[in-house]
């Protein structure tokens, strides 16, 4: 337990640290005005410490270096290139890498418009939370529902349009970053985020809007000439020190057509923000029944006809959903900012102190009414009648999680920030009948330049 007292000590140390000057310019910058060319390089580190308390299944409390990133960018005329890479846990991981071409219309006028075409590997546009950098986030982790239901980076191209009252971003993406699937064509995704801003001033912003995403999954594993697709949805308990996603986890075999619908709203004032999203996800299935049926022929246990095999192995569309609301109050410091071109809330700028709160709801339970759950074998019987060889279940008990987080964030200067979060999670999952309540206190030290 000795390591756990580090958490409040770290917070106290940070609160008593000597303040540094606020600096908005990149630290490492090459600016060639004659060529209209700018090059920057930066880095970011996040170190977390966490203590968890659970009813039954233990989580691994401790400390971890959760983010160690190098970023670089280059701007030339209308072109912008960005790339960043993560080295935390001693492993190289590619993060964003994209090229953007942007142009203004009616610059410096009231009917200003901005267009951009972006190509490369970057976040799916359909959600607000996913597009907010964790470095600018006001909580240690994104909400569980975002981790479970929304989508991260993907390879593609998109077009963005922004004016005073509208934000439109839509694109098309590939299923697989490196085209390294065993066989078959890749699937594809179309996705977009469309917002209306009835209030949009220097100090106040209100945006409301929707996002949508459709993905056709085609890559998977190949067994006996059948490609089996699979989609896994999961979230940790909104933490990185123990990132295990065992408690909220849904495996969806034969996933083929994945629809996301997202509704979002954000209000930002000088000292207050509130934002939230609701996401609904439907996953349609597809399967080569005829080949699978033929593959199982030839034994005493074989199904005798395609129809009987299909009746014993039904498919149904799976449905999941979730929502969150986040709010923050600035005790002192630089007012909250809003990035027009991304339609996102900015992070703390300079010496600041804020108090934040969040409620998140993630529902990965899609269980047929009346289904019997057999905990010893982690198996559902959809018709509720105990049997040795029941019809294959279409129920998915991935878990329902309610999470409440309270936090304090203190930016010592624009480079260094300390975050402290307390989270309570309430789990409803048949598989973890003895795990209902989880508590976690987390601290984070962020250094970014």
């Amino acid at each position: 337990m000795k390591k756990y007292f580090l958490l409040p000590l770290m917070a106290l140390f940070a609160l008593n640290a000597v303040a540094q000057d606020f600096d908005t310019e990149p630290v490492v910058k090459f600016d060639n005005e004659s060529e209209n060319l700018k090059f920057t390089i930066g880095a970011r580190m996040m170190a977390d410490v966490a203590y968890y308390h659970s009813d039954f299944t233990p989580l691994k409390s401790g400390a971890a270096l959760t983010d160690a990133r190098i970023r670089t960018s280059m701007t030339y005329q209308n072109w912008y290139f960005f790339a960043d890479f993560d080295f935390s846990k001693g492993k190289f991981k590619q993060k964003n890498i994209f090229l953007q071409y942007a142009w203004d219309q009616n610059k410096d006028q009231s009917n200003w418009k901005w267009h951009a075409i972006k190509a490369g590997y970057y976040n799916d546009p359909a959600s607000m939370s996913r597009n907010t950098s964790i470095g600018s986030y006001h909580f240690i982790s994104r909400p569980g529902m975002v981790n479970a239901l929304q989508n991260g980076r993907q390879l593609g191209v998109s077009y963005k349009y922004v004016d005073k009252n509208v934000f439109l971003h839509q694109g098309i993406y590939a299923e697989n970053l490196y085209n390294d699937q065993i066989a078959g064509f890749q699937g594809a995704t179309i996705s977009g985020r469309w917002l209306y801003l009835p209030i949009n001033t220097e100090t106040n912003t209100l945006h409301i809007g929707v996002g949508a995403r459709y993905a056709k999954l085609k890559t998977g594993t190949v067994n006996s000439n059948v490609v089996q697709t699979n989609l896994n949805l999961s979230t940790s308990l909104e933490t990185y020190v123990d990132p295990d996603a065992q408690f909220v986890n849904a495996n969806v075999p034969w996933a083929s057509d994945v629809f996301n619908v997202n509704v979002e709203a954000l209000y930002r004032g000088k000292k207050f923000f509130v934002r939230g999203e609701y996401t609904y996800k439907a996953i349609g299935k597809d399967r080569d029944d005829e080949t699978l049926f033929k593959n199982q022929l030839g034994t005493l246990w074989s199904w005798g006809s395609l129809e009987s095999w299909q009746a014993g192995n039904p498919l149904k569309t799976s449905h999941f959903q979730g929502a969150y609301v986040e709010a923050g109050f600035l005790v002192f410091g630089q007012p909250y900012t809003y990035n027009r071109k991304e339609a996102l809330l900015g992070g703390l700028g300079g010496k600041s102190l804020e108090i934040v709160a969040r409620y998140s709801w993630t529902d990965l339970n899609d269980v047929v009414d009346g289904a019997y759950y057999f905990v010893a074998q982690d198996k559902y019987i959809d018709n509720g009648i105990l049997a040795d060889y029941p019809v294959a279940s279409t129920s998915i008990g991935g878990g329902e999680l309610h999470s409440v987080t309270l936090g304090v964030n203190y930016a010592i200067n624009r480079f260094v920030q300390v975050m402290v979060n307390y989270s309570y999670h309430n789990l409803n999952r048949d598989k973890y009948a003895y795990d209902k309540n989880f508590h976690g206190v987390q601290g984070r030290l962020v250094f970014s330049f």
Partner: protein
Amino acid sequence: MHKNLFRLGFAFAVLAGTLVACENQDVTDVNNDAARIETNTISPEMAKVRDYVPPMAVAAHRGSTFWAPEETEAAWRWAREIGADYLESDLQCSKDGVILANHDDNLCRTTNIENVFGEDVPRTRPQWYMENAGMTEAEAMAQYAKDRAAFQPYYTNQYMYEELLMLDAGTWFNESSLEMAREGFTRNKQYVSTLEDQIRYAEGKMLKRDANGERVFTKEGTYDPANPHTSLKYKFEYVDDPEWRGNVPGIYIEFKESWLNPSNFEEMVYNELDRLGWNIITKPCDGEPWYKDGKVNVGNTNGKVILQTFSFESLRRTAEKFEGKVPMCFLLWHDNITPAQYAGYINQGLEFKAHIIGPCIAGAPNNYFEMNAPWMADMIRRSGMLNHPYSFDTLDQMNTYFGVYHYGAGQFAAPYMDGAFTNRSEMTIQFLIDNGARAEGAPTTVEDPIAVLERLGY
């Protein structure tokens, strides 16, 4: 300002300290997990039925797999005479509706079926149809052709009982257990047994045989392929066993995998027990002791029948038919099980009116999964169910699960069993006698097992 910040930091420190002070577990510890899990508990009504079963009941697993060919007249007569509380068996159904006591789903290991019938429907089948189903030769051949089209060779349920009588269920033992081989297992032909056989052996009887040593029986009714399990009835004959010395054990009968038997099999067994006078729901045996005059008397008590199954479907159907009024054992087979999963099995057993959990045990020669570790036995005990582990072959296993080796290290009280399925009834009974664990009135000596076989004529 700094004062406020200090207070805020202090508040978080207090919160963290509070959480640290709460009971928590750093790593998964199955012993602690098991102790923290509350299973459901048996109802008073079910406990009454549970208490029909004698303490430390010794169930002779298939009669014995060690001393005699399993689930035969030889094995069960031996088990009865050695003093087992129960004769254990596995129930299946012949094609013409005779309830059989036979373990494997197919007959290859324990009979000479591959030499007698091969992979085809017995060639005697058309003649059998003409004699027992009132068919013409043409009708019999047509039915034979239908049988052949749907035939699954060697599966017990594919054969008429008279066809099964052609098989030798004893000689294979002599060929596979050379040190235990006895000429008597061949000379006294061992048959694929019926449930009625098993019950009659428990009652002190043996098969009535003709001058050629073949069992004697008659038939009533006409076989109807549309009504195969009830249209033809066999009437078996028995005689008093001259070697019977008074033990009347109960029977411990297992419903096999549901796909092996008719969907109303539990009802068939219910009715068969009724017909044979062994259904305590219709014919209770109140007031009888488990042991009488130094002899086993379980077969005359309300604990005379214990049902058992691995099958979830059979568990449900047994609960529906027997309504928890006959002791029922839910058998477990699961590798790498967690306490939560184990509790799930216990709760499922209770939900479907089981009174006993039957976990497999580790150790040679079978080397099954360990499903009866001390924490597991403790969960069963806390549920109020009985624990009948399977199956014991060695003294080492007896010492382990009786707690002589202090297996549970004090955290979970021994013994880790309330009874035993054993292939060595003589060894298990002697062990329990030596450790003072046999119930009052139970026999206090065990006859030499080989002497028993010789006395019985094997």
